[in-house]
């Protein structure tokens, strides 16, 4: 059962940030970010990488939810999933807002005379 408090807690964003923190994976995502699904062969030709390397990176992206794969005939095609990027961004926004509040109180604390 979910309660309102539960919704405050975001999904663990670390795997998303970790998956995004790699130049090759970012370029694969950028390639896919036009919304079209592509096969491993197409992606490896574009990136001038081996199929094995591309597959490995796609699996990392898939396990972070950043791409999904669909089977088309005998090959898998990969498509970009925007939700985790939005989630990661809103997570950072929340942490950022907490710092704004804290810094506002710090300012009052060190600049002003009275209690905060």
């Amino acid at each position: 059962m979910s309660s309102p408090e539960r919704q405050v807690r975001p999904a663990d964003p670390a795997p998303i940030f970790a998956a995004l923190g790699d130049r090759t994976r970012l370029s694969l995502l950028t390639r896919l970010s036009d919304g079209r699904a592509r096969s491993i062969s197409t992606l490896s030709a574009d990136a001038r990488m081996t199929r094995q390397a591309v597959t490995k990176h796609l699996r990392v992206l898939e396990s972070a939810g950043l791409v999904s794969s669909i089977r088309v005939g005998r090959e898998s095609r990969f498509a970009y999933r925007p939700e985790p990027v939005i989630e990661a961004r809103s997570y950072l926004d929340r942490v950022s807002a907490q710092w704004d509040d804290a810094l506002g109180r710090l300012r009052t604390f060190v600049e002003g005379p009275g209690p905060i």
Partner: protein
Amino acid sequence: MTNQIEKTIELKAPVDRVWLALTDSAEFGAWFRVKLEDPFAPGELSRGHITHPGYEHLVWEARVVRMEARRLFSFTWHPYAVDPNMDYSGEPSTLVEFRLEEIGSGTRLTITESGFDALPAHRRDEALRMNDGGWSAQTQNIAAHVQS
């Protein structure tokens, strides 16, 4: 979107004042809204209860990393640990750094929180160098695309 959060604030208070507000655990607690049990010391775990209204049930926990007088104070913690039923101890922690700079009679304070990608702190600098800034630019591109 970037891999770290950075905030800069210029305070009309001398560096000594700001340093004390950051590193004296009672002073820190007053504005950060946490009641800390012990003084801060490098390498030591700092624990206390949040005093922010509505969040009093939460335990605050951080490990102090560096205390370089009037320059740098840093600790690691679990960001946004707001669910009391959740055990955050096994999750990656982020590094929070407070850097102080004297500007006239005031202080420029820069806060960075980094490590959201779960890299251990000792590998972070290396990894960021390798990423060469392209990370954040490209992620912005993707985010822009997503939000368009």
